[in-house]
C-alpha cells in the first residue's frame, strides 16, 4: 500500500488539554478516506497537522512523502478546503479564479471555468452574496483547480442542505473518477460518507478507535442479538465493541475475522453508521457526544 498520509505517535496539546493523542495512522493513496467522530474529537486538529497549519506537540506526520508544507513545490501537491468553506467575501467568483491562477503553478483554469459554468455560478457575483452551497462549490472548484495529489476537506458538507450536499459530493466524486486523486474528508455525519468513502478512520476523545477499508470493516463487524447473557466471555478471535442488555435480551457489536458460530446469537448486518456509533459509545455503554443522523 502506498500511503499518502502517515502519522506516528502524533499528538497536539493546547495548554493542558490534548486535542489529539498518540495517533498512528496510514492513509492509503488513491482512496477516499472519511475521518469521522463527534464534534471536538480531534478531527480538525489532525487535518491541521496534516496541512502544516498546526505544529505537533509529539510524534510526526508525513504527507505525500514529506513533512507538511516543506517547501513551495510540496505545498502545491496538497489542497485544503477549510471548515465552512471560506471565500473572500469582497472578491467575485472570477477574481477568486484569477487569484488561484496567480498563486498556484499547476492551475487548471479551463477545468475550473467549465466546472463553475456547469454549476451555474455567475463569475461576476461577489463570494459574500453566494449561498452556502454555492460558496462550498467555489471552494471545492478552487481546491480541485490546484490539481493536488491529496485534497483535504474539513467538514465540507456539514452546513449544507441535502441537495447541496449531494451536488458537492457528486462534483468531488467525478473529480476522483477523472484522475488520480486521494481525498481525506472529515464529517460528524456518517450517512454523508457511506457512499463516498472507501476507507474510514473513527476518532473519539482525541484517539483513533478504528481505521481501515470500509468493506473490510463491514465484513468483520457483526451485530449479535440473543437471550440476555451479561458478562459473557467471547471467543479469542472476537473483540467486543459495544454491548447493551435489557432484562431479557443482549445485543453486542463484535469485531471478528471468522464466522460467528455460537447458535444462541442471531447475526445481523451493521450499517456503516451503526458501526461508527458502536465505537463512539464504547463497550461500557459510555455515551460519547451524540452523532447527528441527518439524511
Amino acid at each position, binding site marked *: 500500500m502506498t500511503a499518502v498520509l502517515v502519522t506516528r505517535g502524533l499528538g497536539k496539546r493546547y495548554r493542558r488539554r490534548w486535542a489529539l493523542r498518540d495517533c498512528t495512522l496510514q492513509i492509503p493513496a488513491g482512496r477516499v478516506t472519511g475521518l469521522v467522530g463527534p464534534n471536538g474529537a480531534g478531527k480538525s486538529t489532525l487535518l491541521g497537522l496534516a496541512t502544516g497549519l498546526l505544529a505537533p506537540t509529539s510524534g510526526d506526520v508525513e504527507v505525500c512523502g514529506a513533512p507538511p508544507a516543506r517547501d513551495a513545490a510540496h505545498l502545491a501537491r496538497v489542497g485544503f478546503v477549510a471548515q465552512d468553506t471560506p471565500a473572500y467575501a469582497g472578491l467575485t467568483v472570477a477574481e477568486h479564479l484569477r487569484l488561484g491562477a496567480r498563486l498556484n503553478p499547476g492551475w487548471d483554469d479551463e477545468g475550473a471555468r467549465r466546472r463553475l459554468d456547469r454549476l451555474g455560478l455567475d463569475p461576476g457575483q461577489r463570494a459574500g452574496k453566494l449561498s452556502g452551497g454555492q460558496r462550498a462549490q467555489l471552494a471545492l472548484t478552487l481546491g480541485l483547480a490546484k490539481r493536488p495529489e491529496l485534497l483535504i476537506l474539513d467538514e465540507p458538507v456539514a452546513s449544507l442542505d441535502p441537495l447541496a450536499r449531494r451536488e458537492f459530493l457528486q462534483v468531488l466524486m467525478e473529480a*476522483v473518477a477523472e484522475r488520480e486523486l486521494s481525498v481525506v474528508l472529515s464529517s460528524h455525519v456518517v450517512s454523508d460518507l457511506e*457512499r463516498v468513502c472507501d476507507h474510514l478512520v473513527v476518532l473519539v476523545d482525541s484517539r483513533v478507535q478504528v481505521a481501515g477499508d470500509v*468493506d473490510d470493516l463491514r465484513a468483520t463487524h457483526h451485530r449479535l442479538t440473543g437471550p440476555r447473557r451479561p458478562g459473557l466471555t467471547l471467543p479469542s478471535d472476537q473483540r467486543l465493541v459495544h454491548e447493551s442488555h435489557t432484562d431479557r435480551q443482549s445485543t453486542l457489536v463484535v469485531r471478528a475475522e471468522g464466522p460467528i458460530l455460537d447458535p444462541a446469537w442471531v447475526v445481523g448486518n*451493521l450499517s456503516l453508521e451503526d458501526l461508527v456509533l458502536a465505537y463512539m459509545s464504547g463497550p461500557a455503554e459510555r455515551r460519547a457526544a451524540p452523532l447527528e443522523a441527518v439524511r
Partner: protein
Amino acid sequence: MIEFSLDGQSGVSPYLQVVQQVRQALRLGLLREGDQLPTVKEVVAALAINPNTVLKAYRELERDGLVAARPGVGTFVTRTLADASLAAHEPLRRELERWLAKARRAGLDDESIRALFATAFRSGREVA
C-alpha cells in the same frame, strides 16, 4: 441500460448493492447478453458514489463471468442468469400462496408471517 439506486438503511455495502442489482436484472431478464452496463462515470454522476466502489462491483461481476470490460468502450453483459429455474418460479409461487393462505387461516398476521419466514430461511440456509 439499467439504473442503479442505493438504499442507505439496508446495512448492505454500496458495492454489494450494485452487484445485487445487476444480478437481479440478469435474473429477471432485464439485462441480456451484449447489453452495456452504465459507465463508471455515469454511475458516479447519478449516485454521487465513489468510483472505486463501482469498479469493485464491476470487477466482482467480471470474476463471476457475468460481464466483460472492453477497455475504452465499457462493460458488457456476457451471460444471463435467467436460466431454466425461471420455469419453476410459477408453481413455487402458487405453492407459497397456498401456504400463506393457510398461515392466515391459522391467525398469523403479516408481521408474524415475515418473522416465521425469516427464521425458517435462516435455519434452512444453515442446514444447506
